[in-house]
């Protein structure tokens, strides 16, 4: 089965993912793609604990996500990939991972970031990475919940330096 959702969300596994997307997509596997989280089992455990019943969750490094073993898992399961920021999906795509669309579902306010939507705040570095993803053929959609409208992000990234 193809990947059901690839989502950038700095809260990772949380209510919107578990209940909002989870009830619609019924995932059986969630992969959190983050080198830093993979290297910190205690911190990873906090997020993995939040996975819904019936869903296996793992923290994976970029390299692990690119492995054949992870690809097989994704195809065998009803899978969701979660990224804490914009860099992880870009690294995956550049590494050959077949990402076709990324949901930008939660990048919250931080100094220097500007709101595109109430749940998407970007700085120039974020925009640059997203533009690079788009240039590699990855569709970008802003959507917090499946029941809420989705928005193409690409036109909103144009024009900035």
């Amino acid at each position, binding site marked *: 089965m193809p990947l059901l959702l690839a989502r950038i969300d700095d809260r990772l596994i949380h209510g919107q993912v578990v209940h909002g997307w989870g009830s619609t997509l019924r995932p059986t596997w969630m992969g959190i793609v983050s080198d830093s989280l993979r290297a910190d089992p205690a911190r990873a455990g906090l997020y993995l604990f939040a996975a819904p019943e019936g869903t296996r969750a793992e923290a994976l490094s970029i390299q692990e996500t690119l492995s054949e073993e992870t690809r097989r898992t994704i195809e065998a399961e009803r899978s969701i990939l979660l990224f804490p920021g914009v860099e992880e999906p870009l690294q995956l795509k550049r590494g050959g991972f077949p990402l076709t669309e990324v949901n930008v579902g939660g990048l*919250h306010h931080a100094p220097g970031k500007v709101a595109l939507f109430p749940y998407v705040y970007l700085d120039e570095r974020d925009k640059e990475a997203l533009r690079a993803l788009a240039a590699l053929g990855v569709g970008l959609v802003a959507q917090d919940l499946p029941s809420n409208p989705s928005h193409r992000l690409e036109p909103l990234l144009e024009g900035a330096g």
Partner: protein
Amino acid sequence: MTRSEERPVGLLVTHAALGTELLRTVERILGAQTDAFVLSNDGYSGEALSRAIEDRVGEVPAGQPVVLFTDLAAGSCGIASRRADCGARVVRKVTGVNLPVLLEFFHYRDTLPLDELLPRLEAKGKAGITVS
């Protein structure tokens, strides 16, 4: 009777306006509360919410314990509360907050030691849920 400098502070860390409304409802029932604060997860990343919790706990006078109430254990608030590093402060954490839990807390926080109060909160919260 708990001395005022040892009185537990209630900090509600919840989704959207839930904490505000819960506290407002408590006050409708028990009267105005001091030493009670609300933090919504609106607009916060997970890490930023953890830091906001640490900051809010840091504003409580030293010596006063804090009881941190969150709604979904497996949500951003629950995760951020577990991640928050409040150093040597006494911070106890209660997930699955509901009205019975809060009424028990605010009703008895001045009369029961924390170690007696916390099990009562859990019992009241669970007992408040019935299915028929």
